[in-house]
């Protein structure tokens, strides 16, 4: 078994042993999205128009909320030292951790979001677009949040700081993710948005594992 698979399997198994941690995040997503119609009012046209932005923002917050434990648990129980001392690149370990996070957070959110979209009166195409953009975009969120989580290891006020670091960096993903869903409604441009969203995810994939690894190394010093 390669170290990458071993780490991925370990993290998934840990989540499997405590499924509540994931359910809380998904429950947060559902509750947060339901709050918006209650605050804004039940007017269907307005809700359908802002649905993409709201659902994307809620998914972003839900993903970030679950990230502060991503490396913190390993940092606190000493398992991070074992990753730092594993005889294979730490960049791959960072990637495995973020992939595990995406599987248990980004993927369920992408599946769940279209159902929440129904409450906002999104069209069938809009619902499909929402699920698809979250599927393509959430890996970038896991990686960006993973970097913020690695940077704030052992910091005071970790959770809020993590959000402050990650949110500005998530703006491009948010713009093109929500933009793609809106493009379906307003006609045209969906594929362009989706392509740029994919490019953003690839850019994160190409750069952030190195940054996360650097952050983890300096946390281990």
């Amino acid at each position, binding site marked *: 078994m390669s170290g990458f698979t071993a780490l991925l399997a370990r993290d998934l198994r840990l989540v499997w042993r405590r499924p509540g941690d994931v359910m809380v995040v998904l429950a947060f997503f559902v509750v947060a999205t339901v709050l918006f119609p209650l605050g804004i009012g039940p007017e269907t046209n307005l809700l359908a128009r802002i649905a993409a932005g709201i659902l994307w923002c809620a998914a972003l917050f839900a993903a970030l909320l679950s990230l502060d434990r991503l490396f913190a648990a390993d940092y606190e129980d000493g398992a991070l030292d074992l990753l730092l001392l594993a005889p294979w690149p730490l960049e791959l370990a960072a990637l495995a951790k973020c992939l595990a996070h995406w599987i248990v957070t980004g993927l369920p959110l992408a599946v769940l979001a279209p159902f929440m979209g129904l409450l906002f009166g999104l069209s069938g195409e809009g619902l499909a677009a929402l699920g698809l953009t979250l599927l393509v975009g959430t890996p970038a969120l896991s990686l960006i949040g993973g970097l913020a989580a690695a*940077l704030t290891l*052992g910091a005071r006020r970790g959770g809020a700081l993590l959000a402050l*670091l990650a949110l500005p960096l998530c703006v491009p993903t948010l713009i*093109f993710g929500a933009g793609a869903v809106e493009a379906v409604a307003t006609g045209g441009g969906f594929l362009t948005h989706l392509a740029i969203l994919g490019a953003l995810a690839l*850019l994160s994939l190409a750069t952030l594992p190195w940054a996360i690894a650097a952050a983890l190394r300096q946390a281990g010093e």
Partner: protein
Amino acid sequence: MASLHVLANPARFRRFSQKVLPVLSGATALVLAVGLYLALVESPPDYQQGETVRIMFIHVPSAWLAMAGYALLAGLGAALLVWRHPLAALMARAAAPVGAVFAAVCLLTGSLWGRPMWGTYWVWDARLTSMLLLFFLYLGHIALSRAYDDAERGDRAAAILALVGVINLPVIKFSVDWWNTLHQPASVMKLGGPSIHPAILTPLMVMAAALLLLFVVLVMVRTETEIDRRRLDAAERAQ
């Protein structure tokens, strides 16, 4: 000995800055006086914007310096991570709040300018929105560098953040421009757009030079303070 050389750097900087700072401060005051005279008295009011055009003489250089300041943070971050240059950490710590203040000045003057021009203090103009996000990046850098009991950890974490941030800035800028053209047709007049009249260009450049000098002076003074503070910490811990 390597460690001696490493320690000598902040000390050498201090000797250098103590010689240079008085001259630089004087130059800053002089250029700032000339610039303000040119900007507030000499230059004509704009035929369209009236007297409010003078806000630009602060607003535009502040925007430049805020962006240059973040590039400086990234450069200092690289110097710290690659060469473990201790002065780079102290200078980044000193420069980040200065850059953030310039970004804030840019945002404030932008909204003051917007009140008479747009009839509102804030519009989601592409440039202003990008500047707002840059301001948030500064806030993250400042908060992260000060979030650790071990100051050196904060320095290195913030250095990594600055490098990631500087790679992301063009992406953020591109995204915001895209978002802006999509949601707002380009009817809003751009603040500090390319159509600058020559009569305005001279005071603008002088003001830019003055504010650049101010930036340098502030960063140098603050770096001296950081050096002293780090020394005090080290002395305290040695006891």
